[in-house]
């Protein structure tokens, strides 16, 4: 079972602590959603779990051998076509270069296989990011805001992929600040606030709902939400 034992992290000796004494566990087949406002350290926590960042104190133990990590933004500034890139990743994963084909088909990017990565739209690039993480079935799948930039059809695929990985015994960790994790009703909740992690959700950790209203209705809608006791974070054009 993947364990985070009293994990602390800061960027540089003079920096403040981004994670403070994080302790948690994720069993095979378990799905957990990391919740929290922007900038509280969700991505940092995910990168520590993935093995990108080394904890300043504490340790991540029993990390599965195959980890699939989908970063928040796929690094599309690379001189490869989709096919070439996924071929390199498949080879690095010890899989045949053709292993990517099933994922390009399933994610609807088969028609882009010959397109250079810098020429892809943000959503298509994000699908390449998903494909690279799944080429070899991961024992731990980490998705950092996986719904960002995806079209509606692909947004529906994400819960399917999560269920498949979990069903095969893989653990899944997902960050989300858009409320999309309502699509994962059985997932455990990890809430990050001020560098601390609360497992099982927290009444203190608020959720954020982004709503869209007509310009003429914005002031009235904000006033109504405030009157109902909610906090309105921002009112303005998109």
């Amino acid at each position, binding site marked *: 079972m993947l364990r985070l034992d009293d994990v602390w992290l800061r960027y540089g000796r003079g920096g403040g602590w981004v994670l403070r004494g994080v302790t948690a566990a994720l069993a095979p087949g378990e799905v957990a959603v990391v919740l929290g406002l922007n900038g509280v350290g969700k991505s940092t926590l995910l*990168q520590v779990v993935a093995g*990108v960042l080394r904890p300043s104190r504490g340790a991540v133990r029993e990390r599965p051998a195959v980890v699939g990590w989908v*970063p928040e933004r796929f*690094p599309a500034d690379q001189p*490869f076509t989709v096919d070439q890139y996924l071929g390199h990743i498949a080879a*690095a994963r010890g899989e045949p270069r053709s292993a990517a084909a099933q994922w390009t088909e399933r994610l609807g990017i088969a028609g882009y296989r010959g397109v250079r990565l810098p020429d892809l739209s943000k959503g298509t690039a994000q699908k390449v990011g998903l494909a*690279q993480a799944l080429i070899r079935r991961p024992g731990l799948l980490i998705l950092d805001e996986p719904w960002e930039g995806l079209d509606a059809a692909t947004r529906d695929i994400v819960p399917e992929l999560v269920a498949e990985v979990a069903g095969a015994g893989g653990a899944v960790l997902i960050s989300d600040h858009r409320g999309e994790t309502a699509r994962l009703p059985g997932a455990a909740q990890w809430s990050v606030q001020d560098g601390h992690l609360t497992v099982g959700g927290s009444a203190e950790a608020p959720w954020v709902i982004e709503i869209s209203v007509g310009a003429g209705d914005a002031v009235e809608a904000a006033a109504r939400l405030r009157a109902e006791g909610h906090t309105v974070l921002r009112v303005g054009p998109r």
Partner: protein
Amino acid sequence: MSALVRMRVAGFARTGRSLAPLLAGLVVIGILYGGGQARPAEAYGVSAVVLFPVLAWQTKLLLDTEPDVQRHLARVIDRREWLAGLAAAALAGLVPVALALVLPWLIGGVKLGQGDSLPGALAVGLWTHGLALPAAVALGALASRAVTRSAGYGVAVLVSGMTWALVLGLKSSPAPWLAPPVMPVARAVTGAVQGGQVAVLSVWGAGWAVAGLACYAYLRRTRP
């Protein structure tokens, strides 16, 4: 890990960035051999000195070509991503080294003297450049963005390291051991090199490269 090495080399080769150090290498070799014929051993010693900064620069360019997030993805796939980068840089460095060894013969820049042999001359060339390449890779790696985290610091480390290696390598240097032995090797091959001298310079060069590469590996633990 070899797949990650191929990916780094392919990514570098596909960008225009790989052309700049290659052209610079060709220019310095052209200047070096443009003035007339020299004995190969002497020429190879100087060639290793002038290629040292080019090889270090090429290493930095290669390591900096991959976006930071892709480097992080590679680290998730294989913890030895840092080693794959070094191997890719060393492989890429073999191209200018091969040109430096072969081109002088093609353009008539070298001429065998009395007692010289082609295999012997090439062995000297392999030795001089073989000592320069790992040290240059170490310097370029220490100047890479993953370690220095900014373009300005990266250039400062690279230029300081090049200057350090050349100035401390001068004959009158008070502390030649603090730099890779590219200059002492160039001086040594102007005459008959003794076996003991080869051993000392080889151990010196290998030690400096190992120290530099170990420093890079240590820094990369906390600098993904």
